[in-house]
């Protein structure tokens, strides 16, 4: 898709890198999303973000070994294909007039192609030049040409940007992310380059809160926050072990078993997207959600807005014509849990606080 990202030249005394065949990428055979056992809140949050990207990202926090990163990596295979402008390095979507890169804006012919929705991994230890993009060194050295080589933010445009162990991300990289997620575009001023391109993506983070807190500003960027716990129910645990074991034994075969269900989920996402604009938001739901946010003292309008969007996406996913209280109740914990003001005297977890407020506000 992005021919501009070159393969590196490696030091030649490493035999593995001498031939192209040796450098073939391993086939990505991810554990299928449809085969994930339990963890309904996490799965739902990811699907909602896929249906309506304006919900604003998903943060998955929780215990070790609960399949956080498995679920997110599985998402890539689940997403329906999208349309992009052919040859655009930023993967501009033709129908979004507002968010086009310079070339697509001015170019007259707009041939579109189908492509996979990118789920881009931002690994820890990534350097800034690869995240925001930098001067294409190879080109510059060989032809003396100043050409911008897009980075991860460009690649994630229109898709997902995934950061595992997001709480370990270095501060100066967090700053970059904060800036880009706020403005929806990436502004590069370095090495004599001045480039501006759209960078709208769904930020997905996962981590273990025991290993360090997330900066509040970054926390605020996530629309939904999901807590995953290790299932304690023996039957569920057994099912997880059995499925995972079957997957390890025969990946392709296991994935094949779930293609039908994956297709069903994919269709549900497509259908929900189409329906999204037609879902009704009754005034009493708006009132209730305002009351809920007021009761919890969440700052700003963002919580309320996200609550509406998430509830609407859920209604669309369920094929309903209008949002009901049940939808609101379902999404409220994910939307509000990370927006509560920290209260050192409060003796219960944020999830419980949201649930209590829900009961009070919606009864």
């Amino acid at each position: 898709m992005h021919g501009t990202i070159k393969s590196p030249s490696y030091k030649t005394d490493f035999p593995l890198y001498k031939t192209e065949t040796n450098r073939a990428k391993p086939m990505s055979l991810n554990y299928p999303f449809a085969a994930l056992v339990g963890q309904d809140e996490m799965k739902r949050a990811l699907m909602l973000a896929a249906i309506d990207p304006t919900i604003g990202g998903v943060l998955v926090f929780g215990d070790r070994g609960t399949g956080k990163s498995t679920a997110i990596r599985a998402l890539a295979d689940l997403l329906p294909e999208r349309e992009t402008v052919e040859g655009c390095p930023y993967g501009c979507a033709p129908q979004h007039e507002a968010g086009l890169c310079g070339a697509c804006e001015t170019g007259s012919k707009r041939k579109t192609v189908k492509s996979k929705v990118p789920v881009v991994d931002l690994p820890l230890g990534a350097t800034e030049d690869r995240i925001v993009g930098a001067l294409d060194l190879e080109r510059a050295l060989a032809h003396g040409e100043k050409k911008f080589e897009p980075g991860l933010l460009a690649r994630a445009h229109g898709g997902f940007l995934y950061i595992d162990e997001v709480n370990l991300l270095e501060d100066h990289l967090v700053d970059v992310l904060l800036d880009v997620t706020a403005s929806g575009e990436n502004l590069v001023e370095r090495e004599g380059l001045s480039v501006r391109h759209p960078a709208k993506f769904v930020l997905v983070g996962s981590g273990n809160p025991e290993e360090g807190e997330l900066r509040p500003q970054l926390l605020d960027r996530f629309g939904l926050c999901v807590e995953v716990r290790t299932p304690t129910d023996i039957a569920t645990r057994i099912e997880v072990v059995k499925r995972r074991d079957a997957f390890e034994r025969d990946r392709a075969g296991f994935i094949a078993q779930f293609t039908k269900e994956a297709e069903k989920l994919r269709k549900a996402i497509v259908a929900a997207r189409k329906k999204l604009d037609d879902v009704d938001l009754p005034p009493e739901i708006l009132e209730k959600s305002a009351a809920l946010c007021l009761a919890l003292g969440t700052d700003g309008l963002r919580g309320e807005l996200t609550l509406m969007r998430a509830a609407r996406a859920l209604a669309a996913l369920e094929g309903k014509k209008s949002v009901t209280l049940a939808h609101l109740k379902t999404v409220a914990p994910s939307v509000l849990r990370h927006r509560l003001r920290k209260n050192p005297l409060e003796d219960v977890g944020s999830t419980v606080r949201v649930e209590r407020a829900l009961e009070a506000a919606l009864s």
Partner: protein
Amino acid sequence: MSDDAPELWHTACEAASLLAACPAGLGGMVVKAPPGPVRDAFLAMLKEALPDGTPWLRMPHALPEARLTGGIDLASTLAAGKPVFERGLLASAHGGVLIAGMAERMDRAIAARLEAALDTGQIRIERDHVSDSVPAAFALILFDEGEPGEDAPPASLTDRLAFHVDLTGLSWRDLGETLSSKASATALPLQSVMLAEGHAETLVALADALGIASLRAPLLAAMAARAHAAQAGRVMTDETDIASAARLVLAPRATRLPAPPEEQQAPPPEEQEHQANDPAPETMEAQDRPLEDKILDAIASAIPADLLAQLQAGRGGRLAGRGAEAGRKAPATRGRPLGARRGDPRRERLDLLETLRAAAPWQRLREQRGDAAIAVRKEDLRVRRFRPKSRTTTIFVVDASGSSALHRLAEAKGAVELVLAECYVRRDEAALIAFRGQKADIILPPTRSLTRARALLKGLPGGGGTPLALGLDAARQLADTVRRKGDRPFLILLTDAQANVGRDGMGGRQKAEEDALASADALHRDGFESLLIDTSPRPQPKASMLAARMGARYLALPQADARRLAAAIVPAR
């Protein structure tokens, strides 16, 4: 030197041979062993078990990110005038074994890279103008050299490694015959081995009985069982495979002793003896009992020792150094190096090599001005980052109420004194909170003064109600203060968990217990490391539940005297 030394070595050999058969699938092994002949023998044995030519790499301590995942090679880049990428350690270890020493001091960011590689079998490189993903499936051998009381290896990393072996007590004289474990001709490919009906259930039930929360443990055990079966040439796992997997993978992870089922309180002595000799009896009379009970019996003798050993190693899941991470503050200019980033060398320390590395690819582009051999610009400047060293403050929270005092206050005092002496030696601090009647008091603010502590302890009165919630709240406040200072608090709660005074100072058992659990949750939420020692003569489910809510390790020491208590506490920190 312990009596079970040959058995320990045997276990290590077994684990190594399974690992050699399936390096990537089992993740690897945590080996608690200081450098020395035993460790060398272990490595030699493992290497022997691997096919010839398997990559075998050592990971230097505190290596920079660029060496781990790959990065700009300075010399070649300067010579070639264009960026030349050097392959990192993780990629080089593909298909083989990566050995990391001093795992207890491993940086969290490095551990996270290792975890990602273990999970996906590849690494993503996004640095120094290179975007690539490279296969990196390897077995990780993690050597834990931590002295008692030091940080433990990152728990999220050890969680991904199937085998946990402790060789500290061994001398090279103890090493029995080494199993020759070159993959035998009869071995089957792992893919063709299935878990028998009911075996997944057994492994999950065993993990549950041993109090292992992570689901990776039964998964790795399933993999180990299949590897064990494959070695023996079976296409279906049998009881011996499950027993081995349970012994090698699950038992070392135990966080509690399995509760003996009622009907089995007194198994016939001859059966016990039989099981001690044979890890997986295929006896007829045991047929009607569930498999997990049989296996629990078989591995039971190992568990208590292992559990204590685990506590002594301080490598239990919840104790692995996270306090230090949480207490991290603004940029430090000394301490453990964390790598480099762009920055201003006027405020932080310049990292010369990283700066040169950043400048290297640009040399041909930048017009050479003056006599400078290498043109370095502002955007190349890299500064070092450090993590400040943090001290541990052990906070004792002692139940001095009537119910506790009767049994145990004297022992608790003795234990606190012994641990205080230990703290004094290690320049750590200790504090003491006591709760009784209607209040909790900080008897001893964080201090290193042994004399003062001793005097205060001596005067500590006992008796009255048990305001457990107040005690926990006071502990949380103090722990928070300690963390704010940048130190690492560690809570040790000695109680029988029989709360009967609420947070408001009023009596009432139910309210008191609710309050206590709420306070425990708050402690858990703040992520304080803690250990709960159940001091009641008969271990109580109440206490273990409280520990679970606190996220604390639970240790029931009904027969403990001061010295044994101290022995359990000191290493757990």
